[in-house]
């Protein structure tokens, strides 16, 4: 095995796995017990001793007060888990860190080194707080650098790596783990794997299948006259033990027709203890899980429809996750999606394998290389460690300038006949010490290149120079475009509109900076005044419909001077490849604020969640009425989904009152999703208005472009109008909005060339002077505008118009909805 190794970990809800890629082969990491799976279970004993994995799992049923599992679903939430004997509480992040630490030790035992860098797979729809918690867990476990990768993407990379031939049609990864379901649509083009789209359910997994079995047992007890209320905290322990037995029964029913669930004195009722002694048949299990499987199929069908892929057009389905071994699930999914399953792939370790392969493509070596010889000239090389491009580029820089004039790389011939050798031409080093060389890779394998450097121009007397590193390796295979961001990230403006920074699908890492205008004055030194810049995640245009993931706060007490209304603040957001978000606000005089509060999913008390549900129901009733009047089938379907989600939320809130933290988190998600569905119904009801608006935009932009636009602008406008009408017909709202923006830009360009354009707009804004939020600033702007007008300075007049527009008032209601945003 070469010394360049890449580590990938699947940190699962029920089980975790790890794999190491050495450039040629993927090796599964084995536990001390010899298995390839580490149960995501942690036990703390009275002495504070920690047990992780299979040994801990043995105590799940007998010692549930001190043994915990399935904490992945609570990552990023404000929640701690108590361990009675140790008198300690641990956050889900700390427990995950213990699992990762155990895996790290297994790598060291098996491969002889303690890994420092790793790629960890997370669900595709993990939100920022959950991703941040996972990165923190890796740091606590001793990893110096971690990148996060979406689980379905990891599966796809592994499936693509193992595929004997490329798949021309799109394919689907169906990833049903213990706690989450992810569906991803992928395509392979020119050897490059591209995630076309993904969808999923953060609260659908094998655990819910266990829940169906528990429901069967409780129903059986009710028939016998024993009514066990799952919302009663008194039964929490019994329910937990029952759930573990349900999981065992589920696995048994993959082989047998019947499984027994026996638990003496499972519950304590008023009349005394109740034993559980219930059988469940395979047919009863199928009946219980079918609605859940259908829910996952609905997600897949939604994903296909969103990307114009019809059922039957898929090339294959890759199954990932323990629950996918259930025969009835495979049968139902296969029938619904009409596509074959990929064979020869281990659904339990595929994600870990893909994560290791991705670590290679990201150049994230698991261990740190030995320092180079001090006598050699040091090089800094940049190249893709894994790529589907057979002719990638190598960029390099001399760290000791002046010692080398030209560089060449060579790929030696391989004796076994896997292709001839290759050699580049001599590339001269630039005056800044850099060089660029186009490479030639071996097909479907690893190519090791030797670097040769010389002093003096080649052709004359050549003086070879030792360099370090003098060798590097690139693997040719199916690779992934940079991991795409799964949800749009932006700033909530005071007018309740999202200012998008990172659109969904943007490759990571990414950094954007925009100037935003402050909507209220902060007095330097004021104890309580704070300007909030809310950071949101989601696909909605309206900020309040998105998820608040953090708030950048500017405290007046820390200001060195007043921050006046209308001032511009430069707000920069940055997200690294692992999905870690940082934010910074820079004030006009250079003062910087970078403290992001609340990068944690806030908990909602059960009563608060019920109030929120009721408010959503009122909106739904109104919007649904309009949808029915318009006979809008799509909106009615979204309304039905919202109703279902609100019903689920109500049942979950009831369980949450009984102390079920998982139910509380799930209820919160259901309410947010229901809110989103209601927004869809409301948007659909507004569709006729969108058609009218598009016509208005078309009429006005044609007028300006026809009079003042160039021939090319007129042609561009015709194209944009044609495409916007097609998008309207197909109800592609985002595309209609984008094309309207293009049309308005073309019109702006033409309008601004019209005589007196800015003079007219200045006259209108001046007439609204009394409404300005800062009258003094507005009056000063008007004076500058008058001066510019008298000088005939259109450019200065334009600037004044923008200033006056920024001073016009913001609606207080909009600001409240936008999480109290202080910028726009």
């Amino acid at each position, binding site marked *: 095995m070469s010394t360049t190794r890449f580590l990938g970990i699947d940190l699962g809800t029920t089980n975790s796995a790890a794999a190491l890629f050495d450039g040629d082969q993927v090796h599964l990491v084995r536990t001390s017990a010899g298995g390839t799976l580490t149960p995501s279970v942690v036990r703390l004993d009275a002495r504070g001793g920690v047990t992780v994995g299979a040994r801990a799992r043995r105590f799940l049923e007998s010692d549930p007060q001190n043994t915990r599992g399935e904490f992945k679903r609570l990552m990023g939430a404000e929640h701690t888990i108590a361990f009675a004997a140790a008198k300690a509480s641990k956050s889900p992040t700390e427990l995950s860190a213990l699992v990762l630490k155990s895996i790290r030790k297994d790598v060291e035992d098996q491969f002889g080194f303690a890994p420092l860098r790793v790629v960890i797979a997370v669900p595709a729809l993990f939100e920022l707080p959950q991703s941040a918690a996972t990165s923190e867990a890796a740091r606590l476990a001793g990893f110096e650098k971690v990148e996060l990768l979406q689980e379905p993407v990891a599966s796809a990379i592994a499936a693509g790596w193992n595929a004997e031939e490329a798949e021309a049609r799109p394919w689907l990864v169906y990833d049903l783990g213990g706690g989450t379901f992810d569906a991803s649509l992928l395509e392979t083009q020119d050897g490059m794997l591209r995630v076309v789209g993904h969808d999923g359910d953060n609260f659908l997994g094998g655990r819910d299948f266990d829940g169906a079995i528990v429901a069967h047992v409780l129903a059986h007890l009710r028939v016998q006259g024993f009514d066990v209320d799952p919302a009663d905290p008194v039964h929490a322990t019994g329910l937990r033990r029952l759930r573990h037995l349900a999981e065992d029964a589920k696995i048994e029913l993959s082989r047998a027709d019947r499984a027994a669930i026996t638990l003496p004195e499972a519950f304590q009722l008023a009349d005394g203890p109740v034993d559980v002694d219930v059988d469940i048949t395979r047919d009863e299990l199928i009946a219980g899980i079918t609605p859940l499987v259908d829910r996952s199929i609905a997600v897949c069908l939604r994903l296909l429809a969103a990307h114009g892929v019809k059922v039957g057009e898929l090339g294959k389905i890759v199954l990932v996750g323990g629950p996918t071994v259930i025969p009835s699930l495979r049968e139902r999914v296969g029938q619904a999606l009409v596509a074959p399953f990929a064979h020869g792939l281990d659904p339990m370790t595929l994600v870990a394998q893909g994560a290791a392969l991705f670590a290679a493509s990201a150049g994230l070596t698991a261990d740190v290389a030995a320092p180079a010889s001090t006598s050699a000239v040091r090089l800094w090389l940049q190249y893709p460690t894994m790529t589907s491009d057979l002719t990638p580029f190598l960029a390099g820089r001399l760290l000791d300038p002046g010692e080398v004039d030209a560089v060449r790389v060579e790929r030696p011939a391989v004796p076994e006949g896997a292709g001839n050798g290759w050699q580049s031409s001599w590339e001269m080093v630039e005056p800044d010490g850099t060089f660029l060389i186009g490479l030639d890779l071996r097909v479907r394998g690893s190519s090791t290149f030797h670097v040769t450097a010389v002093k003096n121009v080649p052709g004359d007397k050549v003086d070879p120079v030792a360099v370090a590193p003098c060798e590097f390796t690139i693997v040719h295979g199916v690779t992934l475009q940079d991991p795409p961001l799964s949800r749009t990230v932006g700033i909530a403006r005071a007018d309740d509109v999202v200012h998008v920074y990172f659109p969904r699908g943007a490759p990571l890492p990414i950094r954007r900076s925009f100037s935003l205008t402050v909507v209220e004055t902060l007095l330097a030194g004021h104890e309580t005044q704070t300007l909030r810049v809310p950071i949101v995640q989601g696909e909605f245009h309206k900020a309040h419909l998105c998820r608040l993931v953090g708030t950048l706060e500017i405290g007046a007490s820390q200001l060195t001077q007043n921050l006046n209304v209308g001032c511009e603040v430069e707000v920069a957001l940055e997200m690294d490849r692992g999905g870690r978000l940082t934010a910074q606000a820079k004030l006009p005089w250079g003062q910087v604020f970078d403290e992001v509060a609340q990068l944690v999913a806030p908990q909602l008390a059960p009563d608060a969640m019920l109030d929120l549900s009721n408010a959503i129901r009122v909106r739904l009733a109104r919007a649904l009425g309009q949808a029915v009047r318009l006979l809008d089938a799509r909106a009615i379907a979204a309304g039905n989904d919202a109703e279902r989600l609100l019903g689920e939320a109500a049942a979950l809130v009831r369980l949450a009152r009984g102390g079920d933290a998982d139910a509380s988190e799930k209820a919160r998600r259901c309410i947010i999703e229901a809110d989103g569905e209601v927004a869809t119904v409301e948007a659909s009801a507004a569709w006729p208005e969108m058609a009218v608006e598009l016509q208005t935009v078309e009429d006005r932009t044609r007028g300006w472009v026809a009079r003042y636009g160039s021939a090319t602008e007129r042609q561009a406008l015709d194209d944009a109008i044609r495409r916007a009408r097609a998008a309207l017909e197909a109800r592609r709202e985002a595309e209609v909005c984008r094309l309207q923006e293009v049309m308005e830009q073309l019109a702006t*360009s033409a309008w601004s060339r019209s005589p007196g354009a800015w003079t007219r707009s200045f006259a209108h804004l001046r007439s609204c002077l009394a409404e300005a939020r800062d009258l003094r600033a507005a009056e000063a702007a008007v004076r500058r505008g008058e001066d510019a007008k008298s000088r005939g300075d259109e450019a200065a007049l334009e600037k004044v118009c923008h200033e006056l527009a920024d001073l016009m008032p913001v609606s207080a209601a909009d600001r409240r909805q936008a999480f109290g945003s202080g910028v726009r």
Partner: protein
Amino acid sequence: MSAAAPSPFAMLGVQPDAGARDVERAAQRLLAQLEVGARSAASFELNGQWVDRTAEDVRGALTVLRDPEQRLAAELRAMATEVELPPPASRDLWAALGWRVG
């Protein structure tokens, strides 16, 4: 009138009709060069003026060109390249002109 931002095609040094593979290769080359600090990649000439280029700019251009809708809009704008397009006016300005805004 303020200068327009360079098109994503110009940022990557490819033509508006460049295929996906050419776009990816151009981005890989530029990102590798920018990472090692190659001055030749840190700026490019556009309409007689030198424009700075950073890794963030390259990734931003790649994002646009990988998204079918955004690429379409970029191609349409590229058709009107002989005219400098100003940034869109604020919605308040449109309203000030008496135009209906959403």
